């Protein structure tokens, strides 16, 4: 079964935005047209700024359109862990900011009449294991300290689970259709004068004394401020040492009974499963989704990705009367060491460049927070969240362990690039299979399609030259170091890489590379210009 996002499949009318054509001059340029970029654009346009959004692919087509559509105050890292890694004040600020973001999204859907199925409902957090009881209790306590209403409860009514050890409930959380919401916002903000460009890739960015310059695939953008809203900053950036890339999986199913529980659930035992329900075309719930199975991007167990979907499906069939599996997809998130996103000026010396990253798997709410906060910073309005999310804070003693672990992991990926022990014949690759092989002293990412055609690219990631791995569930090449992902033809999907994997030609008779006269992969002129 091919992967397809439920949100992409249930968005009937997708507005088209043009590609940039020529040079422009604006107050603020925003790189990335997801929920972060579009929310920032809306806030800045409302404040009277001249804004341009530059999206490399389609608006909402990145992680926003591949998420799970849940809006909630708690966070995957747990607020009580943030209280430990930072302090209670930061945890409270994060919780209150997320609460405010929910209200903001609800307000936008009403004001702009966006048909995105926004609906309030409770969040449940429960466990059937003794060793997770304290986690549930501490999360409730931290929420209460933040001044928010959360309670320990004795039952999770829609599920009525046996052997429930501890459960918590928080009312007033919400669901929505994230892609319809972002496209609705984009349409509204474009009508207000914001320039939105799709299929426009930013290749270079320079912060000058009194302005910024962005070189794109379709022209140069001059601006006073830049917001890099690409989930993780593109190019090489120091934040990539403290925001590690992970993937998680979603399976969407219909139920025989049609009894879809109207709530969002976290079932945390040895593994974490998120259970949610959504609607395809109306407010009526008609789809159950199970999400979970996080792992570092490009580092699936035994490089086998299908089993992550299979496990979610098995979980669903154990707990629900599943009629059919309709959609399966996967999404990326970035984890900061202290569990708090990095939102703000990109470096201590930066005056004009802003970033937003490290959202964990809670990005729809955090993206909204980022949009509000970054607009407030650019327009000079006060915002009480700035200190908590400071993007220049780096690491601290409490997060040093995580920092070392993640970066040793990256070093270990580089050490796998050993010039021996690789399959080196194209005939070793079966139809539907992808492998990295070495030919003529070059690492190649080779995929053989069902028609027996070979698709060959350099296997060297264009970000920082790790060797990409094949993702057999999504048919992509995923970089295990910093999370760049590429399509079979080498095109960038997401992550920090700017340039596509270099395409290669192979002589099928001799199985040697054909010298096309272009640059070898070791001799690129432009790459990773953002430092």
């Amino acid at each position, binding site marked *: 079964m091919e992967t397809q996002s439920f949100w992409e499949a249930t968005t009937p009318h997708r507005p088209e935005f043009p590609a940039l054509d020529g040079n422009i001059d604006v107050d603020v340029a925003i790189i990335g047209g997801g929920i972060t970029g579009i929310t920032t654009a809306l806030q800045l346009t409302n404040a009277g700024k001249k804004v341009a959004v530059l999206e490399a692919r389609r608006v909402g087509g990145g992680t926003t359109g591949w998420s799970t559509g849940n809006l909630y105050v708690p966070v995957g890292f747990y607020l009580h862990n943030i209280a430990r890694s930072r302090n209670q004040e930061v945890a409270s600020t994060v919780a209150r900011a997320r609460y405010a973001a929910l209200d903001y999204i609800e307000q936008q859907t009403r004001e702009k009449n966006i048909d995105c199925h926004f609906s309030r409902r409770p969040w449940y957090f429960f466990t059937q294991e003794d060793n997770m009881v304290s986690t549930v209790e501490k999360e409730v306590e931290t929420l209460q300290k933040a001044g928010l209403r959360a309670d320990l409860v004795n039952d999770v009514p829609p599920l009525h689970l046996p052997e429930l050890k501890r459960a918590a409930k928080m009312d007033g959380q919400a669901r929505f259709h994230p892609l319809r919401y972002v496209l609705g916002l984009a349409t509204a903000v474009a009508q207000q004068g914001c320039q939105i460009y799709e299929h426009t890739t930013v290749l270079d960015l320079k912060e000058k004394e009194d302005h910024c310059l962005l070189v794109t695939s379709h022209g140069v953008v001059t601006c006073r401020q830049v917001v890099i809203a690409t989930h993780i900053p593109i190019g090489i950036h120091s934040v990539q040492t403290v925001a590690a890339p992970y993937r998680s999986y979603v399976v969407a199913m219909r139920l025989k009974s049609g009894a879809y529980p109207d709530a969002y659930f976290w079932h945390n035992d040895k593994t974490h499963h998120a259970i949610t329900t959504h609607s395809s075309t109306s407010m009526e719930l008609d789809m159950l989704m199970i999400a979970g199975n996080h792992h570092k991007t490009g580092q699936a167990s035994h490089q086998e990705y299908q089993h992550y979907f299979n496990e979610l499906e098995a979980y669903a069939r154990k707990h629900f009367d599943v009629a059919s599996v309709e959609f399966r997809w996967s999404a990326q998130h970035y984890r900061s060491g202290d569990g708090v996103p990095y939102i703000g000026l990109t470096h201590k010396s930066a005056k004009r460049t802003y970033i937003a990253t490290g959202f964990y798997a809670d990005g729809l709410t955090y993206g909204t927070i980022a949009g509000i906060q970054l607009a407030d910073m650019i327009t000079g309005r006060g915002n009480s969240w700035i200190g908590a999310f400071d993007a220049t804070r780096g690491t601290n003693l409490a997060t040093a362990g995580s920092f070392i672990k993640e970066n040793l992991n990256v070093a270990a990926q*580089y050490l*796998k690039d*050993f010039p021996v022990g690789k399959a080196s014949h194209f005939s070793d690759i079966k139809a539907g299979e992808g492998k990295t092989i070495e030919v003529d*002293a070059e690492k190649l990412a080779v995929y053989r399609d069902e028609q027996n055609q070979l698709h060959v690219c350099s296997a060297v990631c264009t970000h920082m*030259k790790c060797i990409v791995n094949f993702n057999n569930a999504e048919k992509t090449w995923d970089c295990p170091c910093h999370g760049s992902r590429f399509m079979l033809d080498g095109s960038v999907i997401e992550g920090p890489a700017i340039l596509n994997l270099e395409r290669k030609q192979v002589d099928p008779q001799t199985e040697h590379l054909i010298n096309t006269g272009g640059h*070898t992969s*070791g*001799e*690129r002129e432009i790459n990773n210009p953002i430092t």
Partner: protein
Amino acid sequence: MEIIYASIGFFALAALLGMYLLTFVLRGKETPKAIVFTHGPMAVIGVVLLIIYILKGGPNPWESLVLFALAAVGGVYMLYRDLTGRPIPKALAVGHGLLAVCGFVLLLVFAFS
């Protein structure tokens, strides 16, 4: 004296890996990063051992240390260019290797004469 022999051992390993890497740079191919990230630390350990030896006092191969330090600066610069996608100048790679070889020869002369 054992320290200087250990230092020579690490430099010898670094030199072998460095020559292997040079064949990639001269052909314009991507360098295998496992070798890059082994070559550098080997040379660093060699330099550290050499510094420990020199700090103990007495006659010392300071000329070798200077040459290795210059080679190290070139190595760090090449690593920066490599990882950020900029081409490695072939002359720089050769010069880095020649500096290191000169330092290594002087070290051998010092240790075995």
